[in-house]
């Protein structure tokens, strides 16, 4: 039994409740009709409400559980979710092209949502062990394997959006001392990737060569011993990366993937085809004005102009019906929640709890960044939910577990 409940972080719990309730309000609005009712479990808002109750029950059980249990059984949870992910290939339900679901009594369960929890626990467990050091290449490979296994299984479903979220663990590794080179490397990859897409290849090559050669001569002035070789190697690696990005983008990617990037990069404005969702989402949000059109008054929402509005595009309903005030408030609540989790995690003595807290914050951040960025037309279309708000039972349950495990660990801070 957990005896530290009175030390619970009630502020975070309040933030959690406000987000979930606000989510229910907006899901209610997106599918509003005369049968809309919180207790009608056949419609989204009713289902979401049901999962909210389920989440609260789970949260209650989690809070009553001793903190040690999570650390001790982390690997068990992890293996269990791996089994569930593998089991999908046999027992899974195919919904819109991806085998991501178990159907249990008419209710869909998405194991990849729980894989986030289990992986976070497993990574925290592994990194908190004394003999593990991320600066050590062997340890790094060990941790990397733990992260990559579920990614592979999820990509195979295929659900690349959810798989992408596991990239959040990079932030965790970096916090735990990963070489800065990796950070530069990742940002370099992203930078050159975008550059390769928006600029002609010869131009990119020319800039890379000019930049690195001048860098070489600059370093020669400071240090006569500087070698040309590493710079030449860097030129070679950068150019071949840029070339391969270009090649993959044009020859390996399917047109729909290319289009997603083109829309964001402003290369293509096809508001009837692939650009329809983003365009309608922007119209919905943009038409909200300062105060929004009001609850149940969103014409974009009522007319179903934004597809997937109650799931991935729920933010467009918020923008339309609650305006700049409402949507900024949501952004601020997320910002505050993530930073509060990070702050509290940093103050925990237990390495396991701290690393877990980081993983939680990083996962929330990636969802927040991709989902809202996509609704605002800043990030390519990647279908992942907005935590606590988007419709989706497994997602709500998964995130609730993720959060409440941290709250449990956090409330236990004095016992370490």
């Amino acid at each position, binding site marked *: 039994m957990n005896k530290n409940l009175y030390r619970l972080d009630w502020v975070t719990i309040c933030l959690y409740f406000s987000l979930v309730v606000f989510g229910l309000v907006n899901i209610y609005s997106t599918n509003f009709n005369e049968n809309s009712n919180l207790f009608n479990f056949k419609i989204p808002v009713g289902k979401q409400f049901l999962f909210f109750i389920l989440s609260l029950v789970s949260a209650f059980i989690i809070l009553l559980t001793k903190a040690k249990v999570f650390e001790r059984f982390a690997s068990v949870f992890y293996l269990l979710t791996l089994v569930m992910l593998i089991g999908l290939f046999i027992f899974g339900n195919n919904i819109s092209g991806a085998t991501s679901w178990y159907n249990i009594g008419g209710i869909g369960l998405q194991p990849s949502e729980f894989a986030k929890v289990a992986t976070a626990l497993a990574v925290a467990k592994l990194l908190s062990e004394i003999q593990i050091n991320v600066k050590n290449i062997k340890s790094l490979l060990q941790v990397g394997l733990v992260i990559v296994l579920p990614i592979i299984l999820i990509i195979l479903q295929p659900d690349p959006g959810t798989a992408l979220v596991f990239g959040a663990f990079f932030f965790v590794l970096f916090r735990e001392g990963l070489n800065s080179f990796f950070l530069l490397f990742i940002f370099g990859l992203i930078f050159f990737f975008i550059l390769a897409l928006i600029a002609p290849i010869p131009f990119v090559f020319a800039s890379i060569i000019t930049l690195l050669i001048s860098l070489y001569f600059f370093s020669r002035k400071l240090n006569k011993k500087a070698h040309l070789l590493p710079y030449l190697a860097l030129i070679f690696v950068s150019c071949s990366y840029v070339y391969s990005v270009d090649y993959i983008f044009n020859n390996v990617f399917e047109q729909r993937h290319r289009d997603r990037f083109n829309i964001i990069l402003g290369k293509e404005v096809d508001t009837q085809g692939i650009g329809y969702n983003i365009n309608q989402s922007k119209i919905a949000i943009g038409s909200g004005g300062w105060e929004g059109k009001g609850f149940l008054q969103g014409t974009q929402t009522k007319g179903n*102009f934004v597809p997937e509005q109650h799931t991935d595009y729920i933010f467009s309903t918020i923008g339309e019906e609650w305006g700049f005030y409402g949507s900024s408030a949501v952004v601020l609540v997320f910002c505050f929640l993530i930073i509060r989790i990070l702050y509290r995690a940093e103050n925990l003595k237990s390495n396991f709890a701290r690393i877990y807290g980081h993983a939680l914050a990083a996962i929330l951040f990636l969802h927040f960044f991709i989902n809202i960025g996509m609704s605002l037309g800043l990030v390519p279309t990647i279908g992942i939910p907005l935590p606590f708000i988007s419709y989706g039972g497994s997602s709500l349950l998964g995130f609730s577990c993720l959060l409440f495990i941290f709250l449990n660990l956090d409330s236990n801070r004095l016992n370490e």
Partner: protein
Amino acid sequence: MRKLLLAGLTLIMSMVFIVRLFQLQVLNTSYQKLSDNNAILSISDFPERGFIYDRNGSLLVANQAAYDIMIIPENVTPFDTISFCKLADIPKEKLIVNLKKARRFSERLPSVIVNQISKETYAKLQEQMWKYEGFFIQKKSLRDYRIDFGANVLGYVSEVNTNDLKNDEYYQLGEIIGRQGIEKSYEKELRGEKGKRFLQKDRFNRIIGEYKDKSFDIDPKPANNIHLTLDATLQEFGESLMQNKRGGIVAIEPSTGEILALISAPSFNPNLLVGRNRSNNYRKLANDTLSKPLFDRGLQALYPPGSPFKTLNALIALQEGVITPETKFKCNKGHYYARGAFMECHCKRGSNNDLLKGIYQSCNTYFANTYKKIIEKYDTPDKGLNQWNEHLKSFGLGNYLGYDLSVGKRGFIPNAAYYNSWYKEGGWKAPTIISNAIGQGEVLTTPIQLANFTAAIANRGYYYTPHFLKSVSGDTLQRNFTRKNTSINPEHFEIVVEGMHKVVEKGTARIARIKDIEVCGKTGTAENFTKIDGVRTQLTDHSIFIAFAPKDDPKIAIAVFIENGYWGGRWAAPIASLMIEKYINKEVKRTWLEKRMLGGSLVSEYEKPISGKPFEINE
């Protein structure tokens, strides 16, 4: 450092998002409009077009429901085409073509598949409609003319054209506008004011409900009903009398200027311009360039007024003091009005007529002399002619009368400037223009102008602007059909009225006598010409008659103009007389005369000039 990366990124991205939200929601205002275009459908809500009644309250024009069969292609399931075609009374090929057209237009939006089905078809079809998914019947409103006459007065409605759209922002494509007649003149009263309803659409353009609980909706303003001054019975009677003839009849109530009947012959059934065959019928009417049924002869046809014009010359001469009722002129079957220029007259040799006799005998000599005196009263003929012109203008001649229909002609009354431009200045004198004395020459009038000055004579010196509008329900309209005084003093009228009474009692129009009604009138016979292959050819004279009755307290003033009807007493006088009898006595006792007029035909007369053969006139 490492501790702060994620927190920093979170802060930066939150700021980026808020700036982006501010840009989308606050700075950029175009999204509101895009969203409204997306989701709001505004539908015009039309009030029912106003009804039109005659002066006695009988309904002339109402509205009828018409039914279109509509489809929404995406809802159509396979159906029994043959039985549907039978029910809807449409050939199978046409149905297939229309279905294809509808599909091409939109899968989700309704299109018309069968236009304006009859009430019988509607009744049959309605019971069977459930068999045909995706089909429904849409009601619309058409004009319903309860009468088969009066088309020239009532006018018609049609869809707005690009000009209307440019001229008046009120209208939108596909709407109805009054195109002619009363429908045009009182368009604003009859149409009311359309309202707006806002509906919400979903992304498939389907209606999903009211927008904001109707709070933005604008209620339509109901249309007004209009009561006309027209007497439907008289109008119908007049049109039947005019069958197989060409010309116009205008009847006015002198004491008010209310137009009791405006007949233009040939006319057409107003119902021809309603419904399925509207455009075909219209084309036929518009292409009939010989009898010109769309041309309102009562308002638009210019004729020389002929002898009725003598009454005006008599009045002017009395007013100018150049004659008295006792003034006499000698007539020997006519007279020389200048050296070698003889004007014929049908008076007996050796007649010596005073004004009264001059009028009822219609003595050309008398009025030629009178006219000469008017022109020569001043030191130059210019002054005399212009004075004469001013008097005639006060009777509403030579200009638009200001009645409430949109077609008309000014007519023509010459002045000095006109003749000075034809002859050189001083190159003309009274004898030059002597034809004006007897309503020939350069004078041109429309039948309504004839009727109007007859009303002025009946009133002994004034008239009201003739008009068709009696009242508007709701009475929103300012009416300004004012009294206009002529420039002739009232005391001069009695002798002319007496003369006109004698015309009927013992003069040229004895056929116009009605038992127990004192009718005053004046016949006219106007020479007229046309061009056949470039050659000026005389045609049979026009038959003209003006009249009012009863002599004291006149109830009706009337002008009848029958093209090529020969002399005034032959067609125009009997028709005018029958009209008066019908209006005052409500029934016609002289059935023999009625029969003769109804049965009389001038078709052979109208065929002469186009037959291409030589022909006789005035036979």
